[in-house]
């Protein structure tokens, strides 16, 4: 069995798009060959049990949301700790496959972050397998029950199948960038409607969405 750690770096944990993406990928890895275990890295606090499980894995699947064009801060702490412990351990180094989703429509806004992960692999002595950037991450909560390969996840299905094959063959591949199958303008309209619905749900007025806070010196 190939021990595979599915690492969810979203602070939203089980309810996140990252978890949904990891679930999609898990389905593409034959359970007769892959021992697939999920771990949530939702806080910066390093859990030694999780660290031990990650260290003994042969494949790491890392998924998280793009935060300010980069890796969420709590995940950077995990990456630094993993670099430290992997550099002490020479016997086995897993292959790393990463899936980064962003709230913007264009998947390639995750490109820099995949490079940050590639740089981390270089520092930690890990084998970089492949990265995937996924756009329009805000759509995942709306289509929570839609299976991979069905609209609007047809293109995503194709890209994930390609990455899944690379994982099963232990191969590296070029980064892939994919967005759900609907036009950018439809995503923009849907996202902006969802913010207005949320702000009214929270008992505020629509104009509060535009609120500017006067500076109070710390």
């Amino acid at each position: 069995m190939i021990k595979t750690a599915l690492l969810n770096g979203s602070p939203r944990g089980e309810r996140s798009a990252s978890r949904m993406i990891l679930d999609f990928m898990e389905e593409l890895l034959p359970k007769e060959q892959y021992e697939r275990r999920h771990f949530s890295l939702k806080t910066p606090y390093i859990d030694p049990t999780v660290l031990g499980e990650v260290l003994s894995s042969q494949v790491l699947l890392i998924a998280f949301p793009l935060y300010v064009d980069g890796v969420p801060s709590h995940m950077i702490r995990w990456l630094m700790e993993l670099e430290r412990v992997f550099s002490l351990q020479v016997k086995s180094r897993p292959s790393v496959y990463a899936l980064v989703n962003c709230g913007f429509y264009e998947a390639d806004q995750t490109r820099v972050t995949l490079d940050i992960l590639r740089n981390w692999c270089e520092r930690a002595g890990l084998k970089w397998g492949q990265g995937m950037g996924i756009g329009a991450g805000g759509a995942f909560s709306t289509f929570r029950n839609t299976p991979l390969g069905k609209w609007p996840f047809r293109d995503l299905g194709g890209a994930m199948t390609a990455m899944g094959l690379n994982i099963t063959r232990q191969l590296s591949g070029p980064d892939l960038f994919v967005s759900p199958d609907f036009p950018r303008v439809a995503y923009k309209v849907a996202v902006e409607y969802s913010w207005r619905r949320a702000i009214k749900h929270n008992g505020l007025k629509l104009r509060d969405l535009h609120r500017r806070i006067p500076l109070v010196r710390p």
Partner: protein
Amino acid sequence: MILLIHDLGAEEAKRLESTYATETVVVSDDGTIRHCVGCFGCWTKDPGSCVIKDKYSDMGALLGACTQLHIVSRCVYGGFSPFVKNVLDRSISYVHPDLRMREGQTHHRLRYDRPFRISVWFYGEGITENERETALRLLKANSINMGCPLDGVRFVESTVNLKGRA
């Protein structure tokens, strides 16, 4: 007003901060910062402010009021250190949740009218060529995302000779 965000230890911080004018607002690591939990409360529950109420909850307003943003950060894999990134993650109330096209891609609409200029100093021994290249592209992306001109990105081995432009 200059807003300085740094991750330096006490001694280095004192030396750097002493080179800035007194009206500079300094955001530094006192070990109390909490991480962004992805709740979007800064857009839909208390728009403009982070709903985690600590000394970093009004970063959006600070960015909206400053004319220059100076960042001094350890270079970590071509990105910011955990503390500096934490401050930036807690700053998304600076932008509005609606989307606009900038440079051919969707980005957030800006909440405040006046953009600030960004200058960054990355420090650390043995920053690799790939990390430098990644960091430059990261700052270019940040600059587009926040609608703010980028004044410069510099790489230094040590923070000893860093000076603010007071």
